[in-house]
């Protein structure tokens, strides 16, 4: 249901969604294949230290814990009520939650507006609003935070620690992001599935994320923004401090219908151009594909904004340089020649390449480049006052010590990060390059396996630089 602006009582209570002192799990099951079992299993497995109250009128105990017939029967205070029962019981449980004075409810249950029960969903939402009880969902997968050891939902694992707050309407894509996090060291501060977002809105989680100490980039996956004013207001409030990255799906003709069937997202009278304008007004950075969404979120979570277009690419592979040049131009940010950025740098950098190297931009220090060559070229470039960002590339020739070059980049990054110049890396190749990417990411450098991904990240850093100037 629409809101005009982010609501204070909701934002204030969102801390109970991610860091509750006590949780009632309604629908807690004794069977390990059922959602209600997985919720408690996840909480225990990942080290949740608060109190867990299983609610199941049929059971005496669940997971060795005393089970209660209703939320109202729990003797202590309840911060979060997690609901994993069929839709036909949700109304009663919300009433019990209000009676219990719970701080927030999360409804994992499906079968509301997305199957035509819009009236029921709206009635339940209004009931929660009337009672100042924020409702997250329904139709969601859960939420969690690796910093808080909190995994609440039917979620197989936590992401690695990092700085991206992932706010997603889709549970499946949220889980995909968590998988990527594990596989590719995509660090997150917290994550939340919003599902049908009947009550708690994107805007309110954006406001929450703005004040979250671990969050440096707020990433929003949406299938429809039905409270645009609130979204714009929230983004306008936060983008000077933290970037907001968005992806909007369901824009195609059939995708529009699928978005309704999935998360009851209504996109009446909207199209891609509408969302372009909306995001521009909000100061949010829009990604077109899922890969781009993750790539630029990673970069914005790790690196400072790029203050101008003066990026120097240092590579030992001319091909990756060319791929990058073309993609920079496609993205509307053509690379500048090194001599235009800094004439003196173009002369100095010669010292770190063989005679057949190229001091243009990309700076091709050649396939025979040693770690020493890299170190010299990087340090020379990063120290040049006209250079605003470093784009590194490693091509694994038979003489390239990929691991050593990776260490050089990390060393240089750590040595010069006080200058506030972003480092982005591209490492295209086999296992050694994959290992390099993971190591770079673990050390705070966004690294990718293709030139286009890296360029997208740099372009996003530049966009955020412009947004910061505007807001």
């Amino acid at each position: 249901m629409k809101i005009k602006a982010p609501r204070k009582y909701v934002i204030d209570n969102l801390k109970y969604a991610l860091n509750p002192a006590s949780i009632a799990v309604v629908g807690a099951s004794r069977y390990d294949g059922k959602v209600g079992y997985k919720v408690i299993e996840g909480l225990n497995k990942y080290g949740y230290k608060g109190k867990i109250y299983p609610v199941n009128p049929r059971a005496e105990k669940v997971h060795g814990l005393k089970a209660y017939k209703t939320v109202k029967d729990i003797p202590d205070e309840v911060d979060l009520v997690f609901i994993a029962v069929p839709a036909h019981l949700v109304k009663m449980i919300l009433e019990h939650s209000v009676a219990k004075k719970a701080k927030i409810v999360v409804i994992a249950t499906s079968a509301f507006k997305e199957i035509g029960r819009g009236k029921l969903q709206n009635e339940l939402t209004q009931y929660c609003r009337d009672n100042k009880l924020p409702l997250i969902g329904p139709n969601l997968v859960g939420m969690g935070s690796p910093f808080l050891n909190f995994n609440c939902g039917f979620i197989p694992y936590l992401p690695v620690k990092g700085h991206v707050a992932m706010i997603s309407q889709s549970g499946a894509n949220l889980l995909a992001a968590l998988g990527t996090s594990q596989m590719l060291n995509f660090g997150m501060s917290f994550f939340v599935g919003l599902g049908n977002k009947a009550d708690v809105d994107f805007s309110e989680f954006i406001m929450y994320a703005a004040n979250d100490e671990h969050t440096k980039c707020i990433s929003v996956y949406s299938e429809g923004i039905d409270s645009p004013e609130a979204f714009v207001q929230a983004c306008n409030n936060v983008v000077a401090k933290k970037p907001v990255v968005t992806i909007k799906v369901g824009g195609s003709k059939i995708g529009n219908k699928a978005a309704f069937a999935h998360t009851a997202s209504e996109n009446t009278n909207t199209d891609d151009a509408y969302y372009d304008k909306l995001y521009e007004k909000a100061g949010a950075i829009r990604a077109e594909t899922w890969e781009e969404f993750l790539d630029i979120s990673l970069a914005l979570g790790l690196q400072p904004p790029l203050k101008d277009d003066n990026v120097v690419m240092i590579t030992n592979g001319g091909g990756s340089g060319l791929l990058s040049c073309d993609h920079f131009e496609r993205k509307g940010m053509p690379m500048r020649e090194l001599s235009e950025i800094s004439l003196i740098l173009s002369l100095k950098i010669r010292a770190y390449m063989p005679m057949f190297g190229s001091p243009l931009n990309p700076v091709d220090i050649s396939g025979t480049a040693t770690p020493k060559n890299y170190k010299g070229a990087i340090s020379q470039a990063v120290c040049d006052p006209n250079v605003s960002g470093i784009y590194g590339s490693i091509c694994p020739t038979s003489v390239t010590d990929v691991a050593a070059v990776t260490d050089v980049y990390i060393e240089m990054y750590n040595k010069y990060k006080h200058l506030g110049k972003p480092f982005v890396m591209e490492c295209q190749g086999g296992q050694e390059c994959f290992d390099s990417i993971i190591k770079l990411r673990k050390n705070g450098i966004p690294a990718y396996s293709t030139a286009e991904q890296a360029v997208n990240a740099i372009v996003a850093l530049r966009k955020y630089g412009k947004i910061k100037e505007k807001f």
Partner: protein
Amino acid sequence: MEKKSQLDYSLGSEDQLAWKKKYFFDPRGIGFLEPGIVGLDDATMSAYNVAKSSYQIHPEVFNMEYLSKATKLDKKDIIKRMKRMYNEHLIMYVMNPATQVYGYGLYYWFVKLKEGTSETEKAELAQWFQNKDDICTGYKCKDGDFDFYNGNHMRVLDNLLSTVITPCKDNPCVEFVHICPIRRDIRESHVNMWDSTSETFRDNIWGTGQLEKLAKMQKLLDLNDLKIFKALNDKKPVKDMFDFKVLHQISGLDENDMLNGFKSLVEEKRIIVPLFHLNFPKLGLTEKMFVIKMFQTTPSYRKAEIVDDLVAIPEFNMVKEFSDAFYDAVCFAYNEISDIDALRKKISSYAEVEEIKESNVDWMFRRWVCRLDEKNGFWEECVFTDDFLEDRTDKNSPLYCTIAGKEDKK
């Protein structure tokens, strides 16, 4: 063409059964109407689902007006008693789904253990059945011809053989397993099912004085409790079954939609029979199980007639007819509150009956898919393990039910 028996045991209208006329013999002896398939979370199931999920704390989902009139008890008293009966695990609200859809069979099977099998070994096997989620209903027996009597919903016979029957047969303690496909599901838990004669469908049958005897023989339920229990199961229109206002208050769903949906399933399609199950072993009751074998020369219609005769005996709280099996029918009656000798004599009075086997049921594992296993903390845990789309003979199949076989790993 030979004239059929005066009684037509087929289900469905003449038009619906016109296809049978192509054949001299009706296929399988009895033609049947496929009632269709309804998902358990289908909107038409809402009334049942709301009641099933909330009666534990809100017994008033049932029609208290009706119950109060039927029992002459105060509504508050009824609610209090129902809560107590539930909390003490004496009653459970369940439903029997029709399974006579072609390719979706209902199979029961008798197990006999070898002589000399110890009580410990029998208990281990009982535990295996208890935890076997493929099994929707199961009974432990003693003092007789069988040691277990279990039932499965299965679409594919090989799935049944692979996951349940074969492992059971392979147990060194097992003498034999006899499979009995259900031809007619006539009465269960005192209530007549869809294969009873049409007008008696959903009749709730108890023998004269049985409730009074039961009230006297134990202390957990008094006669008023039993009157409530009986009234809950007594046949009535779906509209009188629940308090639809309460169902609406709990769920927010439309009263009329819930009524019409469930009415269509129970009264029109006859797919579902909702009812309360009595946890009879906890009350000290045991069931006498008569397993009836008729001569193979007995024609199908005559078998059906005999079984219908037996169904008319109200002391039989369960009656099923089998096909393609060693046995033709099974009837249950409580030992403690029935005249067992008279029942045995009645069954024996048919010239077609070749043999009666007997056992006493002293424990029940599940009532349909709901576990009755309060000892292990699984009271009313419902696990539906239909083999839809599964090849359970292929243990590496990605579609293999994740639940089936779990108990083997423990």
